[in-house]
């Protein structure tokens, strides 16, 4: 007679053969991995690429005309990086081919090199139009594209992407002087108005990291980048030639290794997958429900209001929530669909933090829906207006 252990082994082995495997599992896992990344700004297309693929893409983009000087490998934030550009004239320079989309660029391609050795990255900026190969037409609105990749192959056994990039909206919203377009590796990048000449990231612990602002022929706006650990939240300060601060952006932390703290959190509302709970860890606020989380917001020092737009399987499906700092009497949520609602009832946050939470349902919205949240004081003055941060798939 078989022992319990033998019977156990056989039963487990046989049972395991009946587990279902979805052929689209990889695509779904990739989609999930991107779901919880903050998308500050309106990223329309992005990709991560290994060094070889990224290099091939760059070669096509640049048409082999761009030369990255090998001298003065700058250390991020300390030594100014080098840059070079390849003017492409008025006609389309080259076509970027990747899996699903292409771009025709109309600007020069400006390369910014940072770091050295295996850590050296080259980021290429250009402006162009997306091409739909199926419909054989060109997009009507220009894109700002950024592609970053490690200059050298990564060290053996290293894990992680070797590059990537995104193409996003090329223009600034009215009144804005700078906007974030996305991130790849530890590089944050975006566009800024002509008068912006420098950018500095101030991390939550006060450290300052200087970034780079560049321009090139045909650029609709300047391009900026700054490199710091993406697990840290930061405030980006933008300055003009006279050294005056002209704009700032708050960047939440990306890719936190979040663990629910034993001290517990503050339950905000009932979502589809459970209670939406806010946690405070190391000065950062994280919202979590059903093993998913969105987090990295500074509890202090950020804008007067931070708002999120929730959707997806773990979320209730359509809600707007976030937190405010002292002095805010109400918040108004405005979606691009035209919907508008006000929240003036707040859930108290942690004692001494000054943080209070709001949450309100909003109608079901499409993937292109964006919005803003505006904080008003008791006298009706606007304290802050911030774009809503999309969550979920």
């Amino acid at each position, binding site marked *: 007679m078989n022992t319990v252990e033998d019977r156990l082994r056989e039963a*487990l082995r046989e049972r395991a053969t009946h*587990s279902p495997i979805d052929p689209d599992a*990889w695509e779904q*896992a990739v989609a*999930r991995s991107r779901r919880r990344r903050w998308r500050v700004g309106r990223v329309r297309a992005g990709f991560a690429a*290994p060094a070889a693929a990224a290099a091939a893409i760059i070669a096509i983009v640049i048409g082999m005309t761009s030369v990255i000087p090998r001298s003065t490998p700058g250390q991020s934030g300390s030594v100014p990086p080098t840059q070079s550009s390849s003017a492409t004239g008025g006609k389309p320079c080259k076509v970027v081919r*990747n899996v699903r989309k292409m771009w025709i660029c109309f600007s020069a391609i400006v390369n910014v090199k940072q770091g050295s050795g295996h850590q050296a990255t080259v980021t290429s900026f250009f402006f162009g139009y997306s091409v739909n190969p199926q419909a054989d037409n060109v997009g009507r609105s220009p894109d700002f594209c950024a592609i970053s990749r490690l200059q050298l192959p990564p060290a053996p056994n*290293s*894990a992680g992407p070797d590059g990537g990039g995104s193409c996003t909206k090329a223009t600034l919203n009215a009144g804005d002087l700078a906007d974030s377009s996305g991130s790849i590796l530890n590089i944050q990048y975006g566009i800024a108005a002509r008068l912006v000449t420098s950018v500095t990231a101030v991390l939550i612990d006060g450290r300052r990291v200087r970034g780079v602002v560049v321009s090139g022929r045909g650029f609709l706006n300047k391009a900026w980048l700054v490199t710091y650990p993406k697990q840290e939240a930061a405030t980006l300060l933008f300055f003009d030639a006279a050294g005056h601060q002209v704009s700032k952006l708050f960047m939440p932390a990306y890719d936190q290794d979040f663990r629910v703290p034993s001290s517990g959190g503050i339950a905000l509302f009932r979502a589809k997958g459970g209670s939406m709970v806010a946690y405070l860890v190391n000065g950062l606020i994280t919202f979590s429900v059903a093993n998913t989380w969105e987090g990295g917001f500074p509890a202090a020092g950020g804008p007067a209001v931070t708002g999120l737009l929730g959707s997806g399987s773990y979320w209730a499906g359509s809600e707007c929530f976030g937190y405010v700092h002292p002095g805010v009497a109400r918040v108004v949520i405005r979606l691009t669909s035209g919907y508008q609602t006000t929240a003036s009832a707040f859930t108290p946050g942690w004692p001494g933090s000054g943080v209070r939470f709001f949450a309100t349902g909003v109608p079901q919205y499409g993937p292109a829906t964006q919005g803003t949240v505006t904080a008003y004081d008791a006298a009706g003055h606007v304290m802050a207006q911030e774009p809503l941060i999309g969550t979920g798939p």
Partner: protein
Amino acid sequence: MADLHAGLETGRLGAGTGDDVAVGVAGLFRARYPEMVRLADLLGADDPEDIAQEAFARLIRKHGSLRNPEAAVAYVRRCVVNLTRNRHRHLRVVRLHTPAGRHEDSSEQAVILREDHREVLAALAGLPPRRREAIVLRYWLDLSEREIAAAMGVSPGTVKSNVSRGLAALAQALGDRT
């Protein structure tokens, strides 16, 4: 938004300088995804694919801090165990607030699985979560105590205890039924 993911589709994320070290997330996914689905299934997850995909999604997000494929496998395995445990915890709460319903295997499973295997698996399902985890990791994946401890987030001594007590409980349950 169109996610292009050119690199991910090549399966060479985290590739080294040679093919022998070109074990990236995509490659790891191809090699280990079925195993992780089965692990979640054997641990009693109601949607094992959901668990396995979430575990790999976390790996993709964490890739920068994992330096070798073995660490990645251990990380994903631990994610599967933790996520399944969390899912059980969640379902226990849900069941407190919903009318009692008994879990039934599909008719396909009922036909396919041998009677004695069903008995064993039913007894396994009746074990406390950590004993079940230790048993599955030990007798299905043939992991060492150290590896099981890493996956469960406990000490090797606790693993030994869980396996021993789990086996004893299984023996008693199977003995009672025969």
